[in-house]
């Protein structure tokens, strides 16, 4: 039986962003506290950021393509020992051999140097803590945290064989968790799904003297032998969960003295799962693992939690809503409340891109300053191929209105979808010069084939002849065989006719230029009888346009995409202009690059700068 005075340790290793506490283990800390168990969270990612520099750490977590698993490679020697042949292959095939994102030889040298410098880091983590005070040590591992977590877990187990080691996080989802148990014998338990219910029960069982309990939703070493189907145990009611406790993070952050100008994010979960994926999962998306079922918190619970966050951690940090998709009922409930009674907090969130202007205005009023709408493409046929449920015009509208209401957007252009039409990328390249006044894509990158995505579940139906773990895994987890890698991997390489590195070259170049054009504007200033448009999209040129009468009305009406038929029915046009006059105005706008046309729909591109919706009805 664990001694009653002992505590629980939860550990957060590199590489995960140092700018945000872990929501998962902060929730578990609160959950075990409700059962009377004290818990410490050790953020060793903060320690490493302090050691190697916050900028360098940030680059590792935020810039390098995920498929490179750079954070795992940096800690692979600590876990598995040196393997120079594997390193040579990694450097040659990944860092220098990637067909698109390869880095320079000098940058490779710097990465090698960095790896040398962090060689003793896990030892220092071990030495920094008196592990004997703990009855159990848990690790949260997502994305690039496996190697460092496993290396420290093994070290703790070696010195304290009676302390149970528990792993959780997205790297343990479903079969990946079972394989971690099987491959790393110093791991005692793995939580393959949500741990809100299972982890506190496990803690209680261990404290009650059962070292090998059977807990629904938790895998034990016995399961590593029997290899059962992973029992998932999602929390049915998110309102019943406690508020996450971030005190350890902020205490440790204060000790490492980070740069004062860096914004720290506080994670807030208002929902789990994806309501869109329940019926139309995007073909490339593997988020939410095997548990897609959408559940959200009540608006009142979210408000209470926000008030609590503000009281505990102040209002200078941005609240990052971690949901993969916003509950659209919040447009009627939570968001109007936040807009009516501002809490003085700013927010970032992810949501679907088919937004109305009024909804974006409401988001801004509610305090949202940054959002990640799932845009992914500016081609209707490719959006359809990925089952995105949005159109090119909707995506551009969302970017435009976000600009109008001061919300920065984080978005991507993805390519490499099996059976996509290369001509669509040439069309997108031609579109870019018209959109330079809007937020540029964060990245124009190849899609990843990830576990749990429709591409992974049914590759043949999607034109993929075979799927194998990304070769990066073999270079990093070099002692493991192909079958082990298949069970452990989250990212896969697909075999299909793919020449996208060639036919997207022009678009990628255009996006790079777009990323440098934060100065470009295309603004429309409406007045009662006319509009003025200012256009600086062409480098070094400033154009001004003035339109009055029907043309001005047509332009303002097309702030949301409209057809000629819809325009003719609008009160501002009906009976005042002929269809040919309207079409002539539309053609002129398209010719001047002030508007785009998609099928029968026309969309004005300029951002309204009167602070009000541009449309006059």
């Amino acid at each position: 039986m664990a001694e009653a005075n002992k505590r629980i340790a939860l550990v957060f290793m590199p590489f995960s962003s140092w700018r945000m506490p872990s929501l998962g283990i902060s929730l578990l800390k609160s959950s075990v506290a409700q059962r009377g168990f004290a818990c410490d969270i050790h953020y060793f990612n903060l320690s490493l950021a302090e050691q190697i520099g916050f900028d360098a750490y940030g680059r590792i977590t935020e810039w390098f393509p995920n498929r490179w698993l750079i954070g795992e490679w940096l800690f692979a020697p600590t876990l598995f020992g040196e393997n120079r042949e594997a390193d040579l292959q990694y450097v040659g095939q990944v860092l220098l051999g990637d067909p698109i994102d390869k880095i320079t030889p000098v940058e490779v040298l710097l990465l090698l140097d960095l790896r040398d410098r962090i060689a003793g880091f896990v030892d220092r983590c071990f030495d920094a803590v008196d592990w004997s005070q703990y009855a159990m040590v848990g690790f949260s591992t997502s994305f690039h945290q496996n190697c460092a977590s496993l290396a420290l877990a093994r070290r703790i187990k070696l010195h304290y064989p009676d302390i149970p080691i528990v792993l959780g996080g997205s790297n343990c989802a479903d079969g990946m968790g079972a394989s971690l148990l099987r491959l790393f014998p110093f791991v005692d338990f793995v939580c393959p799904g949500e741990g809100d219910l299972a982890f506190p029960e496990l803690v209680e069982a261990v404290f009650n003297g059962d070292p090998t309990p059977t807990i629904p939703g938790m895998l034990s070493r016995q399961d590593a032998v029997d290899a059962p189907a992973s029992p998932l145990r999602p929390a049915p009611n998110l309102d019943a969960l406690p508020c996450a406790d971030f005190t350890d993070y902020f205490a440790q952050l204060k000790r490492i003295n980070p740069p004062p100008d860096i914004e720290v994010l506080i994670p807030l979960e208002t929902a789990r799962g994806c309501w869109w994926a329940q019926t139309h999962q995007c073909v490339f998306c593997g988020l939410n693992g095997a548990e897609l079922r959408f559940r959200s918190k009540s608006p009142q619970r979210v408000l209470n939690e926000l008030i609590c966050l503000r009281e505990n951690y102040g209002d200078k940090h941005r609240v990052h809503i971690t949901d993969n998709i916003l509950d659209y009922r919040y447009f009627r409930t939570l968001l109007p409340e936040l807009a009516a009674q501002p809490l003085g907090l700013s927010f970032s969130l992810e949501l679907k891109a088919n937004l109305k202007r009024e909804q974006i205005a409401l988001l801004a009023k509610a305090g949202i300053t940054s959002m990640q709408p799932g845009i992914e493409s500016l081609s209707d046929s490719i959006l359809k191929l990925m089952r995105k449920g949005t159109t090119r015009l909707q995506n551009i509208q969302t970017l435009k209105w976000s600009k109008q209401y001061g919300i920065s957007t984080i978005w991507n252009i993805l390519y490499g979808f099996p059976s996509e039409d290369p001509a669509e990328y040439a069309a997108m390249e031609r579109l870019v010069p018209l959109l330079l006044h809007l937020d540029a894509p964060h990245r124009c990158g190849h899609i990843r084939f990830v576990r749990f995505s429709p591409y992974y579940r049914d590759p043949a139906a999607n034109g993929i002849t075979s799927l194998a773990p990304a070769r990066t895994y073999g270079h990093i987890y070099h002692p493991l065989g192909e079958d082990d890698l298949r069970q452990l991997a989250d990212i896969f390489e697909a075999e299909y006719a793919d020449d996208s590195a060639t036919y997207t070259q022009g678009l990628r170049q255009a996006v790079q230029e777009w990323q440098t054009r934060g100065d470009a504007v295309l603004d429309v200033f409406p007045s009662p009888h006319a509009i003025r448009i200012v256009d600086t999209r062409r480098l070094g040129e400033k154009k001004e346009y003035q339109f009055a009468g029907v043309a001005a009305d047509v332009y303002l009406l097309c702030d949301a995409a409209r057809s000629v038929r819809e325009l003719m029915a609008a009160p501002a046009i009906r009976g005042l202009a002929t269809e040919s006059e309207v079409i002539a105005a539309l053609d002129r706008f398209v010719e001047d690059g002030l508007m785009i046309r998609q099928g029968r729909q026309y969309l004005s591109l300029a951002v309204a700068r009167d602070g009000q919706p541009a449309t006059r009805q």
Partner: protein
Amino acid sequence: MATEKEMYELIGRAVMDAEFRKKLMADPEQAAKEAGFTLTAEQLAALKSAEGKGLAAVLEERLPKTLGVIYIE
């Protein structure tokens, strides 16, 4: 004069040989010369540019800034 292929060979040597890697970081010209690589002025300048800067500064010079958010790929 080192070709691109030779430059890659030099990096390969740095991967395989920790001592050489250290020497290369400390004195690229001398380390490359000792190992039989004759670098171009441009290649040498690139290697020297890393001295005392570290990864963040070198990447900063050629990559667009991150947009200041946690981004889930």
